[in-house]
Every structure is written in C-alpha cells, then in structure tokens.
C-alpha cells in the first residue's frame, strides 16, 4: 500500500500516517501478519522525522492495530474481535462530525447514506 503524507495539510503528520494504516487494514490492503517498513525506512521514504513515524507506530500498537517486536519490527496485528466498548469511543469520535453535518443542515437519512457509501467504498478497497 502507498502511504501518502500531505505536508501542507492541517492534520498532524503522525495522525495522517496512523489513519492511513488503519484505512489500509480496513480495506484489506494490509493483511494481518504483513510486516511494515522499519521506522527509519518509512521516515526516509516519506522524508519525515523518525520520531514522527515512531509516534504513529506506538499509537497503532497501543490501539491494537500493530504488533511491535524488537527483531522483526512492526507487523499488522490479527483482525480484532468485536468490542462493545468501541461503541462509546465511536460515538465520541462522531460527535464533531455529526455536529458539523447538523450545522450544515444535512438530514439524518443523507448522513446515514454517506456513511453507508463510505463504508462500502473502504470495504471494496477504494474501488
């Protein structure tokens, strides 16, 4: 998978790296057990600081997306099982997004439709 980082974007670089790896896993572009480039290699390829990549990797490890090993480096973790506590986390993450949709006068059906479309877009691997 190609990871792209927009230096001009408002989103911090480590968040961009983290998000794209999560998207890659969701889309099936990154398979469980697949190794990721070393922190140094990824940093060199993108042209960013080693600490930035390290931060993204640590975050992904803490969230359970990555397995870190001193020898084999970073590896995509096995697929997660359903977790009831994610419901609350999701709702928290959605609050600003839904709020913006409400401000922009989007009704709930349209909102759900967009969510559906995005969901299957990712599932199809971006096609």
């Amino acid at each position, binding site marked *: *998978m*190609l*990871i*792209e*980082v*927009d*230096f*001009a*974007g*408002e*989103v911090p670089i480590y968040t961009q790296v983290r*998000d*794209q*790896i999560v*998207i*890659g896993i969701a*889309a099936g*572009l*990154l398979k469980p057990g*697949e190794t*990721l*480039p070393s922190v*140094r*290699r*990824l*940093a*060199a*390829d*993108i*042209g*960013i*600081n*080693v600490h*930035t990549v390290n931060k993204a990797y640590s975050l992904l490890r803490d969230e359970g997306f990555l397995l870190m090993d001193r020898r084999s480096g970073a590896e995509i973790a096995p697929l997660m099982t359903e977790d009831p506590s994610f419901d609350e986390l999701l709702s928290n993450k959605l609050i600003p997004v839904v709020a913006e949709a409400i401000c922009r006068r989007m009704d709930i059906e349209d909102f759900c439709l967009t969510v559906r479309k995005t969901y299957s*877009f*990712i599932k199809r*691997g*971006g*096609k």
Partner: protein
Amino acid sequence: MAEMALIFYVINLSVLILTGVLLAAMPYYTGKSLLFGVRIPQIHKNHPAVIVLKRNFSLLIGLFVMILMAAVTFQYLFAPKWSIFTSVFAPFALVFFQIIAYVPSWKKARKLKKENQWVVSFVGSADTNMALSRQTFSRMPWYWYISGFALCIIFILISFMVYPKIPETMVTHWNARMQPDDWSQKSYLSVLSIPMIAMGMNVIMLFSNMMVWRMKLQVNQENPALSFAQHRKYRLLLSHVLGLINLLFCVLLLFFGGMTLELWLPDSNTVWALIIGTTAVSILIPVAFSIWAGQAGNKLKPKVLPEDERSAGLIPKNTTVPKPSFQDDRYWILGMFYYNREDPTLFVEDRFGTNGGLNYARPMAWVFVVLIAGLTIATLVLTTVIMINQM
C-alpha cells in the same frame, strides 16, 4: 609529441561537445514538474515564460561551450604541451559556466512561480510493500560485478602462475608508440597492483550502483503507478549502464595488466583503439541514456504492473489550499542542494539533471563531500605540479 597533442585535442573537443550537449539539454530531460530546481505544476510546462527560460539557458551553455572550444583550439595551436592540463581543467571550466548559467535561471524560475502563484501540493509517500525499497538489491544485476571480480581473481591466479617466468624488471609504462619508457622491479606488489586497482574500481562502482537503489523514491503524485514503474525500470537500466561500464574498464585495466606480465604485447594502434573505444562507449552510453530516459526515467514508457497500482484512492483528500511555505522548494538551497534536517535519507534524486545528490543536513553527506573534494583538489594540484615540472 605532436601526435599526442592531436589525440588530446580530439579527446578534449569531444568531451566538451558531449558534456555541452548534455548540459544544454538538461532542462529538457529533467522532470516536467521541475524548472531549474523549482517545483511547478506539470500543466504549466508549456507556459511561454517556461519555454523561454529553458531556451535561454541552453543558448547560454551553447555559447560557453563554443568559447571553451575556441580556448582548447588555441591551446592546441599555440601551447600543445599543455594538453593534459586542458583535459583536466576544461570540464571544470564547463561546470563553473554551468553554475553561472544556472543560478539566474533558478532565480527567474522562482520569481515566475511566485508571480503566477503556482502552487504544488507537497506530498511525501512511502510504500509498505516496499517492492522498491526492500527487495531492491535483489533486482540489481549483480552479474556485471560478479564477472568483474571473477576476472580479477582469474587474473591474480594467472599472475601467480606466470610469476616465476616474468623477467626481473617489468615494463610498467609505454609511450604513445608503445615503446617501454618506465620499468620497475618485479615484486608481488608490482604484479598485483593492476588487478588490485581493478578490484578497487569494482568495489567503488558496486557501491555507487547500490546507492542508485537506495536513493529516496520520489513518486510523481500526478500518476503514482506510472511513476513507480518508471523508477523501477530506470534503476534497473541505470544499473546495467553502470555495470557495463565497470566491466569494460575492468577488462581494459586487466588488458594493461597482461601487458606488464608480458602475456600479450599488442601494437600501439590496438592499444589506442581500445582506450579511445572504451572511453567513447563509457561517455556516449550514459549521455544517450540520460537524454533518452530522462530524470529518474520520466521519459520511459514502462509496462505498469499490478504491484505499481498501490494508491487505492482511499487517502482522504486534503481540502485546504497548500501554503507556499509548505512546498519542498524550501529544502532545496539554490534548487540544487537538498538540506532537510527532518529527513533521514542520505541519497536523493537531483532536481536538475539526472544525477543523484546528498541530503546535506546529514553529517554522513559531509564525509562524502570531503572525500570527493579531496580527490578533485588532489587531481588538480597533481596535474598542475606535473605540468610545471615538465616545463
């Protein structure tokens, strides 16, 4: 002596013309999104001001080359003894002239970009499959170097076999008519020096070839899949070019080695044909390759493999307009020297021309600079001293 001067004159002229053509054509085979080291949107590649800027640079280089050609001719006619001196200094003069022509062009390109408010998004990318960064060395054509090393080893074995038969004083230098003019005492060191030099050259060339593969991958965001394929093909082809030249010079060196061992004693025409042939091939092939393939292969039309199609379109698109300060131009001092403290890469693709460069923010880069500068200064000083002593 007169013959030598003529040969040098022809070589000097050819080197000037070839490097001149290469320099003058440089704006045209550098990537379309780069204008004298300044990143511009590809759609503006045919902007009238861009065309004029490129043309003026080429014309200026053409003028400089003609001045240098006149100087070389003058030297041949009036100071034929200074041939070697000219051979060493003329390319440096051309590099100096190149900088004179380049810097104003870079300034104008920057101004053009600013005035027209051309904005380019600055995106960095990495490939998690690393088909191009991890498996790279396995794609390298090792056989060029393996054959080079094998030839050296075979030569060393032969040297040991014939060592007892070699006369006590060995010829180590011939003049242009193939008459011996320098000798040295037979010893293992003098016998093995040539294959050792050949080995050393093999190591240096192998190292530069590996550098090609280690270079930071700068994917063109406007068509990532094609860009990946181009990089892959370019690096492979460049490796073949480097490998071929290495092997040619290796064979040439060992051929001379065979002469010192008296394994063969060719006539002067054969030797000159070999020297000129090898030099011509080693200049012509890279020149033709650079112009044909373009910067990092941007003129190549490779087959795009499924593995190249990695950008799945899932990347959230940035909606904000990039700020000029966020463009990568700011990491390129004079548009020529990459200086980025954040970036751990050491080798990068040049922004002007098809060479590679260094990230000067890395301390390792300066080790290279000192080494290369030392070698260059040593060559210049040595040539000058030898020339003055011969006067």
